[in-house]
Each structure stands twice: as C-alpha cells, then as structure tokens.
C-alpha cells in the first residue's frame, strides 16, 4: 500500500473557509490538515460538511464572498498560501486540475471536444497546433475511447454523460498535473457507466503517479475505490483511516453513517438513524494517520 509516501504531493495545514451572512460568519471549513501522496484520498461527508469547499479552496476557486485562511499549503516545493491570482493561474490546470460533477457544464458547448483538449495542452505547453491535436488523440485513446478520431470532432452535446466525463478526464490529465481534485465526478452518471469511468481514472492515476483527491458523499464507493479516507463533519476531519479498514471505523459519526446505509441483503430491516452528538463539532481532531 502506497498510503503515506515519503514526499507528499500536497500538504495542507489548518485550512479555514468562512462565509459572512446576515446572522454572522458561517464557517464551512474549520481548521483541517491533511496530506495527499501518490495515492487516492477520498474525502467523504454529508452536504454542508465542507468537503467541496476544501477542494475549491486549494485552487482558490471559492464562491464570491467566501474567505479562506491557511497556515501552510504546499504543492511539492511550492507554497500556495499567499499566491496572487496571476501566480495561481500557473498552478491551476497545469499542476493541479479539477474534475467537476457534470461535464455538461464544464465543456465549452460551441467547440469540438478534441480542440478543447488540445487547447488545454497548448495553454500550458509550447506546442504547435498539429502536435497538440496529436496529443489530444493519444489522450482520448488513453481514456479508452475506441474511435478517438470520430470523438475528436464531436461537439459536447453529441456525447453521452459517461463519454463526456471521460473527455473531461482527458482534458484534465493532458497538462500532466501532479494532483487531481475530483468533486463528485461520477454522481451524475448511471451506476454501470460510473464504474467504467472510475476504472479509467484509477488506471491513469496509478500508472502516472498522480495524486487524487476524491470528494464524494458515497461511503460505499469511496471505501472500495480510494486508498485512504478522510471523514468530514461540520467543517472538520473527524476520522482518517485506510479505505479497506473503513468498516472498522472508530468515530461514532462514521459508524452511524455506515449503519444508516440500506443494504441489499438486509431487505426491509429498519435502518439505524444517526444520532448527532453536539460534542462532535468541537472534540480534538485525530492526528495524521
């Protein structure tokens, strides 16, 4: 298991995100620290747990009005905390890319998908148009699209959801980033397609040694797909463990979540309802696994 490598790709220390509202400042992320190595780290939580804000804060893509502070955020040797918007442009897309839930909203509707992938390459690398197109075709083949030439010339509305998400993966991987942040990348897909897309992501990330931050609400999926799992509750990490050991989780919140999942083999059995303990909000955070 490549769980914690010697040199983590991303180290985040004491990240906080807040929104000012009419009833005072609402803290969405309340001081979390974690590392992502050359492995798949799942961030699981319910809505409002701050998991999406964590992913966005790393790329400084927070919604307007939100503010974030961090003690330290290192990508390899680079300190990201305190970079201005211009310097961030050199990081975003080139060294860290982001895959969002619905490819429909992330692809430019009036541009052929192949050109979008080629464009993503040319933004970050000096290359001729022909060379970039060549790379885009290779990348389409790498995400297991059978006829890359045909798909290259399609417009986004002509591709299915699963194909669209594979195209997004191709586009995000072509600048050869060190880290990928995937925010619910398969939630909009049907179950059978979902597994294919995950398998492709799995293969590329593993063979190319890319770090993957996989943000999801689906405990089952994360525990079977990722190497390591962080459970977020009310803006903090309440539990971290290797994904394979999630079913022996210790924190009552994690255990409660697992117990409230309906299972096929349990049939009509009444589901356990999660009792939230107010002390979970502020108890000490477990140390790095």
């Amino acid at each position, binding site marked *: 298991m490549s769980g914690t490598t010697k040199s983590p790709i991303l180290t985040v220390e004491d990240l906080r995100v807040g929104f000012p509202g009419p009833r005072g400042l609402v803290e969405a992320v309340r001081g979390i620290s974690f590392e992502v190595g050359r492995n798949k780290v799942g961030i699981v939580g319910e809505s409002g747990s701050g998991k999406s804000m964590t992913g966005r804060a790393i790329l400084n893509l927070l919604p307007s009005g939100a503010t974030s502070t961090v003690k330290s955020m290192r990508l390899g040797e680079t300190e990201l905390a305190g970079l201005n918007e211009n310097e961030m442009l050199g990081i975003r897309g080139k060294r860290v890319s982001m895959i969002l839930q619905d490819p429909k909203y992330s692809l430019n509707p009036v541009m052929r998908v192949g050109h979008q992938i080629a464009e993503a390459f040319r933004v970050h690398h000096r290359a001729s148009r022909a060379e970039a197109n060549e790379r885009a075709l290779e990348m389409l083949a790498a995400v297991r699209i059978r006829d890359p030439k045909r798909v290259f010339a399609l417009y986004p509305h002509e591709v299915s959801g699963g194909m669209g998400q594979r195209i997004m993966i191709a586009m995000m991987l072509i600048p050869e980033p060190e880290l990928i942040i995937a925010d619910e990348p398969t939630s909009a897909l049907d179950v059978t397609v979902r597994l294919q897309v995950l398998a492709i992501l799995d293969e590329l990330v593993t063979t190319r040694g890319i770090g993957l931050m996989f943000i999801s609400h689906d405990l089952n999926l994360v525990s079977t797909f990722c190497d390591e799992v962080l459970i977020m509750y009310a803006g903090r990490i309440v539990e971290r463990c290797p994904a394979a050991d999630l079913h022996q989780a210790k924190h009552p919140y994690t255990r409660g979540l697992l117990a409230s999942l*309906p299972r096929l083999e349990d049939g009509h059995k*009444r589901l356990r*309802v999660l009792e939230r303990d107010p002390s979970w909000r502020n108890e000490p955070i477990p140390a790095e696994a």
Partner: protein
Amino acid sequence: MIEVSHLRVAFGAGENQSVAVDDVSFSIPEATVYGLVGESGCGKTTILRCLAGLNRQWSGTIRIAGKTVGPVRDLAFYRMAQMVFQDPYGSLHPRHTVNTILSEPLVVHGIAGIGPRVSRVLAQVGLGESYRYRYPHQLSGGQRQRVAIARALILEPRILFLDEPTSALDVSVQAEVLNLLRDIQVEQGLTCVLVSHDLPVVANLCNRLAVMNQGKLIEELGVADLMSARAHSGYTQRLIAASAGYDRTLVGLDVD
C-alpha cells in the same frame, strides 16, 4: 389496486419519434410497495407520471382501484392518489411557507378544519409546530422532504407515487425518510409505487419490483430474490453487482 397493461409512451412524431415506454404491463396488489428500477432514461419516471396523471400522452390501459382511468383525472382521483417528488429543493414553492404549502391541497379540495389537520400531519412526519411558518429555504433537505411527504398525506390518499424520494438526501437523512415512509405505509395500508435507481433503497421499501431498460420491462422480482441476488437477466445481475461499489475486476474498460 393498480393494473397497467400494454402501456406505451412515445415522444415526438414521425422519424424523430422516440419510444420512452414500450408495451409495459404489471399489476400491484393493495397495500404493497412496488419498485420501478433502472438507469436514467429507461422510462421508469415516465410510467410514474402516466400513473399520476402528469403525462397525458400514452396508450394502453391503466386501471386504478378497479376503475379504468383516462389521461385526464378528476378531483376524486387526486384525493386518492398523491405523489412525492425527487428533489425536495424544487418541489416546494419557494415563496410559500410550510403552512401555505400544506393548506393548499385542503383549499383545492374544499376540506374544512385546515389548522388542526396541518398540525396533525406535521406531527405525523415528525416535524413540530415550530416549522409551520418557515420558508423552504430555511429547512434542510430532509425537513423539506418531510414537508413534501406531509403534503401528499394531508389528503389521506390510498396510493402514493414516490419518484426517487431519497436520492437527493444525505445517507443519514435518507435512513430517516425511508423509515418514515415505511411506518406510514404500514400504518395506513398505502399502496406505493417507488421509482429508484438505488437497489438497496428498493430492497428496503418494496415487496416486488420491475427492472426496466430502454423502455422495456426486463423482469419482475420479489424482494427475496433481490436480497439474495437471484436475478435471471444479465442486466439485472450487472445492476446488482454495481450497487456493491467499485471493483476493478468487474469492469470491462473498453465498452464505448
């Protein structure tokens, strides 16, 4: 209670016609929960909308409570059959308070005693009086879905159509809503049709289910068959395997 035979729904005309539901027949006994399962675009939601009277372009026969119903329904039908929608963020009017939302069906049907009835139904879905004058945006997803269920229950229907009632909710909230739906169904002997893509949810609520793919009904299963993964068609087997989570060995990469 509900009998559907040779139901067919097609959208568009001429060459662009697409058949959403193709010759589907099933019947649901009283006081049971029937699941319609499949991936997006398989026609399961379309069938539910035909049953609820929201989709009026269909052919075939639908019999509900012993009576053959047409595309247009009367007030008596809506009093007997109600619906809960998938997205609790979209199914409650954003500018109406919970009180207004719950009173509306009573006003439409000219039923007296609105105040106490709203209180009773709020209690029934586990929301107190303190939620009565809130707007939907002041409620969490689970609370909203409880309000939506309360709205469906306030007319005391005998049939409930459930369109993915928990798919927009967090798992812990999903458990609460599933338990609530089960309690109400048992207590009032409701006949329910549940549309879902989530097999564990279907296993939790349904007595029987139909698996659909591309508008066709592939097979019908009892809940015991589902629990022990005894399915005949390969498609159903694939759905069951996929619901267990990610398994590298199961996935063929080169399917396009």
